[in-house]
Every structure is written in structure tokens, then in C-alpha cells.
């Protein structure tokens, strides 16, 4: 199946061939790995910090405490709140963006000039840096000067308080997240849809198969690897959300939106509690690792199946 197996029919001496066959994939992938491996050193440092009582402004108390930082989390309600808020946030945004992104990609799948232009224009929210976009959203949802507050007041919501009300805070940040990141999923799925092979669809059309059947039995399964890649990257970013939440509410009101990264940021930059901050981020890392493992397994399985079919 692989290219390497084909190459054995060539005329170059077999030993050299064999070496090349084995070495080639490593030669191709190792540079990427080497460039990233430097990052592992700070990562290990961070693991070490997470096992310490380490607050920059209490140097006298610095010491190695094994897993105490983690054990303390277990009984800390603020920590569990952070876990649940982060997971809720990630789940809600990824699901909404996936459904919306897939819908838009399907709307724009025909490669007309207008559709192509629309797909590029839809990338504009993604091109606006989230930190700056959030600043603008904060203004647009201001009860005095905000155009969005004004517009919703026209349809009867005169006292809608957006991110500042615990009941609507999650809704508001989700709205901004959806606005910024749906185009990300849309463009990946659009590219995926457009590169799907034509034959199955043509055959189905000839046989007069109902369109819902085509969508659920042909389009969706064939698109699945792209859906998994897109939602995986979205999940990685969204569970680590910082910019939008921090700019709009700093994790408030109360602890309504206290996601991992905001908490870890405060712990480090404001409280200079390096140990706790590192431990929080290690937990976040573990959750991310676990979730992406599931995604990747699924992705590989689908790929295997696709290969088996072809």
C-alpha cells in the first residue's frame, strides 16, 4: 500500500533502499519534532513547579510538597467550579460552532464566485484578534452606547445586561466565541466538502436516493475525519479560552465564568502563586490530553476504515 513498498521495484541496490525506506519517514518528521522539542524543557520545569509550594512574594515558604497542590484541589469548590465552567464552555461553543459551521459550509458548497467571496468575508471575525474583538463587543453591549443593547431594546429587552448578569454571561461569551470561531470550522469543512469524491453522490442521484439519506449515510461519514480535526482544534482552543472571557468579564460576575486559563493567569500574574498556577495548568493539560486522545483514536479508526474501503 505504501509508497515505500512500490520503490522496491526500482534499480538501486537493495540495502540502500531498505535503509531509505526505513529512514525516510523519520527524516521527514523529525525536523518538526526537533523544533518543538525545545518546548519540552520549560514544560518539565512547569511540572516541577506544580509540585512545589512556590509563591514569589513568600520566598521563605518555598519548598517541595509533592502532590499537595493537586490534593488541595480535590476539596476546593472553586477548583471544581472551574472544571465545570471550562467543560461547559468548551462543550457549548464547540457544539454550536460545529452545527453552525457545517450548515454554512453546506450552504456555500457550490463553488460560485459569490459563495467563494462570502466564504472569505465570513473569515473576517476570525481575522479580528479576539482581544480587540472583545473590546469592541464590550462597547457594543454597553447599555448606554452599545448598538447591540440598543437593537435588543427595540425588540423589547430593555434591561438586557449581557456579560454582566450571571444568568446571561455564558450566553454572551458563547455568542462572541461563536462569532469569532464558527468561520474556522466553516472553512475547514468547506474545503473538506469540496474535496470529497463525486462518484458516490452521482450514483446516489441516479438511483433517486432521498437527500436526507445521502446526507447522513454518505456526506456525513465521508466528512467525518474533517469534522473531527476541526472540532479537535476548536476544543483545544476553547477549553483553554482566555482572551474573550478575560476581556469581557475577568471570570465574573462572581465566579460564573472562571475558566482554567483565567484562574491560572490570575494565580500567576496577580497573585504570583507559581506552584498553584502550574498545578492548575497541569490539570488542564491532562484534561486536554485525555479528550484529544479520544478524538485522535476515533480519527485513526475512521481513516483505517476509509482505507479499507478504497
Amino acid at each position, binding site marked *: 500500500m505504501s509508497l515505500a513498498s512500490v520503490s522496491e521495484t526500482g534499480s538501486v541496490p537493495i540495502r540502500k533502499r531498505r535503509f531509505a525506506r526505513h529512514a525516510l519517514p523519520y527524516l521527514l518528521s523529525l525536523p518538526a519534532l526537533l523544533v518543538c522539542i525545545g518546548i519540552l524543557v520549560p514544560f518539565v520545569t512547569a511540572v516541577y513547579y506544580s509540585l512545589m509550594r512556590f509563591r514569589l512574594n*513568600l520566598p521563605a*515558604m518555598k519548598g517541595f510538597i509533592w502532590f499537595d497542590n493537586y490534593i488541595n484541589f480535590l476539596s476546593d469548590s472553586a477548583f471544581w467550579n472551574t472544571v465545570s465552567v471550562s467543560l461547559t464552555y468548551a462543550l457549548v461553543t464547540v457544539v454550536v460552532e460545529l452545527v453552525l459551521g457545517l450548515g454554512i459550509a453546506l450552504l456555500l458548497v457550490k463553488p460560485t464566485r459569490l459563495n467563494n467571496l462570502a466564504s472569505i468575508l465570513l473569515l473576517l471575525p476570525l481575522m479580528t484578534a479576539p482581544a480587540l474583538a472583545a473590546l469592541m463587543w464590550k462597547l457594543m453591549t454597553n447599555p*448606554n452606547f452599545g448598538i447591540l443593547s440598543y437593537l435588543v431594546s427595540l425588540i423589547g429587552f430593555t*434591561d438586557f*445586561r449581557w456579560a*454582566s448578569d450571571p444568568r446571561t454571561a455564558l450566553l454572551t461569551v458563547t455568542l462572541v466565541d461563536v462569532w469569532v470561531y464558527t468561520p474556522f470550522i466553516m472553512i475547514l469543512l468547506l474545503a473538506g466538502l469540496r474535496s470529497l469524491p463525486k462518484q458516490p453522490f452521482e450514483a446516489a442521484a441516479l438511483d433517486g436516493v432521498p437527500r436526507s439519506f445521502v446526507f447522513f449515510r454518505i456526506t456525513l461519514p465521508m466528512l467525518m475525519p474533517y469534522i473531527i480535526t476541526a472540532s479537535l482544534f476548536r476544543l483545544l482552543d476553547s477549553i483553554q479560552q482566555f482572551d474573550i472571557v478575560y476581556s469581557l*468579564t*475577568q471570570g465574573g460576575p*462572581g465566579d460564573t465564568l472562571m475558566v482554567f486559563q483565567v484562574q491560572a493567569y490570575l494565580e500567576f500574574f*496577580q497573585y504570583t502563586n507559581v506552584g498553584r498556577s502550574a498545578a492548575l495548568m497541569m490539570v488542564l493539560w491532562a484534561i486536554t490530553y485525555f479528550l484529544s486522545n479520544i478524538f485522535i483514536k476515533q480519527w485513526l479508526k475512521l481513516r483505517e476504515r476509509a482505507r479499507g474501503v478504497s
Partner: protein
Amino acid sequence: MFERGRDLTQRFVKGEISRREMLKGASRLGLGIATTGFLLNEAMSQAIAADFDWQKFKGTKLKLLLNKHPYADAMIADLDNFKSMTGMDVSYDIFPEDVYFDKVTAALSSGSSEYDAFMTGAYMTWTYGPAGWIEDLNAYIKDPAKTNPNYNWEDVLPGLRASTAWNGVPGGALGSDDAKQWCIPWGFELNNVSYNRKIFEKVGVEPPKNLEDMLAVAGKITKDAGGPYGIGVRGSRSWATIHPGFLSGYSNYGQRDFDVADGKLKAAMNTAESKAYHKLWVQMIQESGPKNWSTYTWYQVGTDLGAGASGMIFDADILGYFMNGGDNKEAGNIAYAPFAANPAAKAPTPNVWIWSLALSSFSKQKDAAWTFMQWASSTEHDLFGARKMDFVNPVRASVWKDEEFRARIDKSYPGYLNQYEKSSEGSKIYFTAQPLFFDLTTQWAETLQKMVAKQLPVDEGLDQLAANIDKQLKDAGIGG
């Protein structure tokens, strides 16, 4: 002509001619106000140069870390004078305020020697000092070999000098005898009422006399002003929500954040008086505060006042000052009033924010950096900034007495001098200095948010907060 102007200003500085004579002479020479200002300051720089070797570090290159702020702008506008006086070169990195302290923490925690001196707030030195990132400046101020004889440290307002000095002991009194001077006050803000005169006239109210009155006035504005709400205060989930108006009013009732006994701290925000104060404050926001209060920071509070969306603010006096200029819609309509929350209190007790200069412990040229710092905090530069730029509030008593500065403020900022004078004596930091300042104060703000959102009753919320804080103090080894 430039030379003659220089001569004139030098004679003025030496006291040979009066100010009026000098200005008359200057106008005869055809020098504009701005040129006179520059020459005057140059002359002053020469005057302070008199008995001190300013050229000692000639050729040294300094690098500063600055926040994008009018104080930094004023310093940069005057920087050429320093360079020509000392023969030193000064470069600087300016970062936006939004990310400034992150940059400082990142630079200092990595032990970077890139920056010699930097801007900081007094609260931040409670972290930087114990972490070993900044120098005790007493070693410089008190050394005649390092500090010029005209520096006049005693001229800096005593409350500010004390508020920037701490012995590093959790709960240790600010400005105690064994305190280390972690930074030099540079410019400061105190918290009083800034209000919109047009709105006040329209509704027919006077600046509030105390907290209950503030609720009434704010309520009347919200009801009668036809749009604007009554009172702007900060509400975001940050220590910065506690430190301005809120803590100023709180202190006016004699309330403290912590009780300190035998070097141990104990949360003190759940007393009966504190609960009563919190109830009033929460009620005030619910009835006549900004709708999006829990996202309100310095910027939103100021913007609303400047754009006529709020009737008054209980926040930094210089926030009201800024909103009275620039391209703000209400520029020219803002006035200022001292505010004592407690009807029984004799005078206001504003908590203060002090922009200061600190000397990095990682600097490889500390003496040279101190040369810059003493110039930047000198009477001469303070005067220049206060007269010509927005270097307000000045930290030196002598500058507050300067006629030109007073005339400028009095003309465009009605009531500003009065609010300052009524409250300057009680102006200082009312927080207890301790290493968990940012964690615990942020939690205080979080609790306040829950109270305003009616998720938590005030009494219960404060008891919970105090219990929570006591536990953390104990964990950190500083709780009783």
C-alpha cells in the same frame, strides 16, 4: 534671542527677578508660552545641577519600563533636559496599561536586567519587595553622595511617603521606622466625587454629603435626569473594584480589612458596621449604578461620566480630571467635591493609588538609574509636569502651592483644589500590607458581585468571605 531668553529665565530661577517680570521680559522678546516653559525648565535643571555632580554617569545608557500614561508622557516631554544635564542616554519601552503589569511581572520574575527602573503602583511593591526584585531606596535617598542636596524628600506628601514604605512583615504598618522605601511616589490619585454640573443643575441636586445622601442624590438622578444613571463606580472582578470609592467610604466608617495582632492577620470585613456599609453600597449599585456594573473598570466609569451617561462618579479625582478635557462630550461640565461617607466623620479618608518609580534589583547600573529617578521625581520636573502637562496629582507639597499650577487647575477644574485640600490629610493607603493582597481583595470583589446580583445575602456573604480569607491566611502561615 534664545540666548537672551535663557538669561532671563536663569535670573528668574536665581530669584533676581519676579515671575511677572520674567514673563513680561519673555513676551517682549517674543517667546511663546511653550518656549518659555521649556527654557524655564532647562534653567531649573541647571539650578538643581548647582551642587551636585550630575555628569558622574555621563555616557551611561539607561532603559526604563513605562506604562502608557499621561505621567510617562510628561516625563518624556521633559527628558531632553535630563539628557543634556547628565550626558546620559535614556531609552524606554512603553506598554499599554492593559498589559503593563504582566510585562513587569514577566520581566522581573525572569530576572531580566534589561530595565533599570520602572513605573509601579504601591500595592505591587508588596509583591516585588518580598520577592527581591526591587531595591530599598532609603540607601539612596539618605546618601548625600548619591542624592543631590536640593532633592528635598521631605517635600513629598507624608502620607504618600509612608504609603510606599513597608517593612515587609505581613500586616506591618506602612511607613514604620523599620520600613523599606520600595518606591518613590511620582503622581497619585485620591478618591472623591466628580460630578456633571449640567445634570446636577437639571435635577436640582447638590454633591452628596454622605453615603445615605449619595444614595438619595443618585436615585434622584436616575429617576429624573431622563437617561443618565446616578452614580458610577467600578465593579469588575478585580482588586481594583475595592480600592477606589468603596474602600475610601469603608475607611471613613473606621472599618479595616484585617485585624493585626502579634504579627497574625484576621479578616475584619464581617463586623456589624461593615455589613451595614456593604448593604448600603450594594443597594446604591442596584438602584442607581451602571446596568453593566460587574464589567465596569476605570475605563467604563470614566467614559460614562465624560459622555454624560452618569451623573457622578465616586472614583479617582484624576479620572474626573481627564474627563473634563480631551474630546469628551461633557468636557467643561465636570466639577469636583470632597466626600466623607460617614455622617459622623470629620473629613474624607480617601484611599490612594500612587504611580511610583522603582529601582530594579537586576539593574547593573543602579546608581545611574537612581540619578534618573531623583530627577524624574524632583520638584523641577514635578512643577513642569503639573504646569504644562497632565502630571496631576503632583506628589510634592511645594507644587500644590505653586501659583501657576493652582491657577491652571482652578480655572478649568472647579472644586478640584478644594476636594484635594479637604481630604489631603486623610489621603493614604488604607489596605493592610500583606502578601496575599491581590488574591484576597479580588475575592472581596467577587463576593460583592454576588451580592449585587442577589446570589448571596450581604451578611452571609461577608461571613463566608471572612472564613474563607482566614483559612487562606492560615495556609500561608500569616493567619491567627
